[in-house]
């Protein structure tokens, strides 16, 4: 049994690859902004228009929203809801599951439609799912990136003096 939750890492190259894929999606769908949030509520990346709200708070609530809905799905006999849609008067958001580890959140307004966003999102979700499966397989100990905290015991002690 693993001790606790696994740890994972996210590199500059990952960031580059994701940004490219999401920029293409934003262009095709005319959505404003896309955020990637991991299931424990940590913001992984933001692409497109920089949101005006607090992105950390947003990420936490997204993960909570998604996991609460997962449980609701189970109660009604579904495995999960792989996407969620929240509609506002001007702004709307669409959330999709990526490889059961990450959530893609797309913010859009009346310059586009839910139909178009959903349509263009399919390919992006597939692409990102494959991508994140690889990222998580790698775990925190990417061979090309030595564990930055290895042997940092003294520095950790100092931090908390």
């Amino acid at each position, binding site marked *: 049994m693993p001790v606790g939750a696994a740890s994972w890492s996210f590199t500059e190259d990952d960031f580059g690859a994701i940004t490219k894929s999401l920029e293409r999606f934003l262009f095709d769908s005319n959505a404003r902004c896309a955020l990637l949030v991991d299931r424990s509520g940590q913001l992984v990346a933001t692409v497109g228009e920089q949101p005006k709200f607090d992105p950390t708070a947003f990420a936490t609530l997204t993960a909570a929203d998604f*996991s609460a809905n997962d449980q609701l799905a189970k109660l009604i006999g579904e495995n999960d809801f792989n996407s969620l849609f929240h509609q506002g008067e001007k702004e709307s958001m669409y959330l999709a599951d990526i490889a059961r580890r990450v959530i893609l959140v797309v913010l859009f307004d009346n310059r586009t439609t839910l139909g178009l966003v959903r349509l263009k999102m399919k390919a992006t979700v597939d692409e990102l799912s494959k991508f994140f499966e690889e990222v998580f397989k790698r775990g*925190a100990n990417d061979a090309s990136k030595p564990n930055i*905290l290895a042997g940092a015991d003294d520095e*950790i002690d100092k931090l908390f003096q």
Partner: protein
Amino acid sequence: MSMINYASREINCKIVYYGPGLGVKTTNLEHVYGKVSPDTRGKLISLATETERTLFFDFLPVDLGTIRGFKTRFHLYTVPGQVYYNASRKLILKGVDGIVFVADSQIERMEANQEAMQNLYDNMSEYGYDLTRMPFVIQYNKRDLPNAAPIRDLQSALNPGWEISDPSRMRVTANPFRSGENLVEQLQTGEWVEHAPYFDAVAVTGEGVFDTLKAVSKLVLKSLA
């Protein structure tokens, strides 16, 4: 689930405050929020009922400094302590890296503390996490009250020690937070046990709040090192 983000040069970790209802989990976060400088913390988010009982969670992100050029960001969460909110409580444990168990010292709350501890253990096992091997500290709160139980009694009820089966860990280890006490020790019965570090606290005045936070954060970072 800790995340090392090389792109933004951050280490993100999740800490959950767990414990019985009205045990002052939320007050812990409020105190941290009020005391750290605004540029090292984010918004405090509370999903609570009208009577200020936690409904889903409280959340506070804090930066605790930089190690090797990486910002250490801790995401602090509380769970709802009331028994019937177990479904939400369990969701918050997902991906947790370190746990603070906030016990209510009042004698009348002994049973509630024990139930919450058992509930924590059960919820963790359902995720496949082993509480006994994770960064875990206990905070005995409301030490200001006249009906607070002696620490000795709280310790034997809530922190009697996990049994150690791995021979390589069977050596006496001093408690770095309390001189003269041990975290790992051999009982008279011959059995080896490990206790969680523990702290006295009075959350309203802030006593013990930062000691607890520092201890758990340090354990979390060390578990990554």
